[in-house]
């Protein structure tokens, strides 16, 4: 598994993380270690050393189906506190730097 510095920067960018130049190289090694582990598993499977027939990907630790909620409205009292804690507000709007995706 080869990870480039560019990959690390891209992932950091997507996650809006600022990564210092000196952190890039160690991160490349971290990524490679993690992905390398899965590559080992894949290889073992391809070479017939690991039989995964009938084994679903493990996505959830929870085995039970989650309970569903009835469709009954409940009003939350949290709003005023949240607005009060907002960095900026106007009346009951949250205010953010202007963002226009169009145009």
């Amino acid at each position, binding site marked *: 598994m080869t990870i480039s510095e560019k990959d690390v920067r891209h992932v950091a960018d997507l996650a809006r993380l600022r990564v210092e130049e000196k952190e890039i190289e160690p991160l490349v090694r971290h990524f490679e270690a993690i992905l390398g582990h899965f590559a080992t598993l894949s290889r073992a499977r391809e070479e017939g050393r690991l039989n995964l027939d009938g084994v679903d990907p493990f996505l959830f630790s929870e085995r039970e*189906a*989650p309970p569903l909620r*009835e469709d009954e409205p*409940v009003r939350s009292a*949290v709003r005023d506190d949240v607005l009060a804690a907002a960095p900026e507000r106007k009346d009951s709007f949250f205010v*953010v730097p202007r963002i226009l*995706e169009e*145009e």
Partner: protein
Amino acid sequence: MTFRYIPVIGLEIHVQLSTATKIFCPCSTDYIGAEPNTNVCPVCLGLPGSLPVLNKRAVELGVRAGLALSCTIRNHTVFHRKNYFYPDLPKAYQISQYDLPLAEGGEIYIPGDDGRPRRIRITRLHLEEDAGKLVHSAADGRLEGAAFSFVDYNRGGVPLAEIVSEPDITSPREAREYVARIRQTVRYLGVSDGDMERGSLRVDANVSVKKTDETSGEVLYWGERTEIKNMNSLRAVERALEYEIIRQTGVLAEGGSLERETRHWNDGEGITTSMRSKEAANDYRYFPDPDIPPIVVTEELLESTRNALPELPWAKERRFAGEYGLPEADAAFMAESLPVALYFEECVKNGAAPLRAANWIRTEVFRVMNEKGLSMDSFPVKPSVLAELVALVEGGKLSTTVAREVFAHLAEGRSLKDALPAAGASPGGLSAEDVEKMVDRVLLANGDVVEEIRSGRDPKGKKIKFLTGLVMKEARGQADAAAVSGILERRLGEGR
């Protein structure tokens, strides 16, 4: 070699589900006209430590829509996180579905361009949460150059079903038909109000154009596709696609190439414009939301939902045509919406002749509804009353002209008993005696014509028809024309 450019269209339709609460929290979905940020809680504001709990009703409505669209419903369905940063999304991810959607592999039929039914395959239907709303024009009234956007999370977390079609649509007209059919279906099902203007049904279109050899049909080049957003009416869907197909065809015909991009429909100017392309933004890094284990759709839920499906629009159209002998267009009109279909059938059950009832509903009922801005549910003339009126016309007791006047009075809220005399018609129709008297008056007032007829100067019967017409006019259409001419002939024979 001559070329033919063929459009290829696939649509993504988001419908807001008619639930009382949001998809993952018990906040009200009633966001239209609500004060900003009133229907919000830790879950839909994305506060740390909050956990989503799925709304059972949203699943039921999704299953309902999926079944009606002939989809296969998954018995285990998984929610994924779609990651992106935008201020309308406080968690920085949208809970949506990815490779294990609720429903897949459906179909729906629309009237094709050749007049025959066309099958449009439905790729999938999945559930997701809506985002909040950004107000770009300043709340303080400043429109230009405002440095801020205003965020309202009332809509954030409202449940959506996204219905994705295969690229089976080949013209703007078909796209419009498809959207109309989906809208009609979700309304029939009570799954969504499907209001495009208010945004409870939103359409994104993927369109590309392929260049083919006119004679062999061979595909020579397939242009890159664009995605069009912001089409807020059926008409807008059709116009935007017409524009975009001409634009793409033009580019290809000149030997140019197209880039994959998102374009914004500007309804006022009738054009699409390129939105800032988001190269990296499409890297959504979907992964299963660890907060929501797989949802189980039980066999019981499937069975009870299937059993509770209403008669769907296409089945109703077929039945109206078959059972009542309505022409196709009338059948489609009567089945257009559930309230109209109910009104029509109620009319027929109360004795109205189906074709006549359909004509009255198409013309008079809809005219008054449009003029007064009424809905079918609040229409003042009950179907049983319209049935009585239609029966009077059918029985020859009322002319269509007078019946229309009666109807106008009914629409004002009068009862049939009051509306008949108000329109100059008598409530029980005319008695034989009344008609005789009218004949007398007409004969008296037209002595010269009577004389001519009696002396045999009416070989073609035109003059007797003229007299019949005068009596009918006096009777305001409430007499039977054949009966009147019978009386006239008898009376004219008497004094000969």
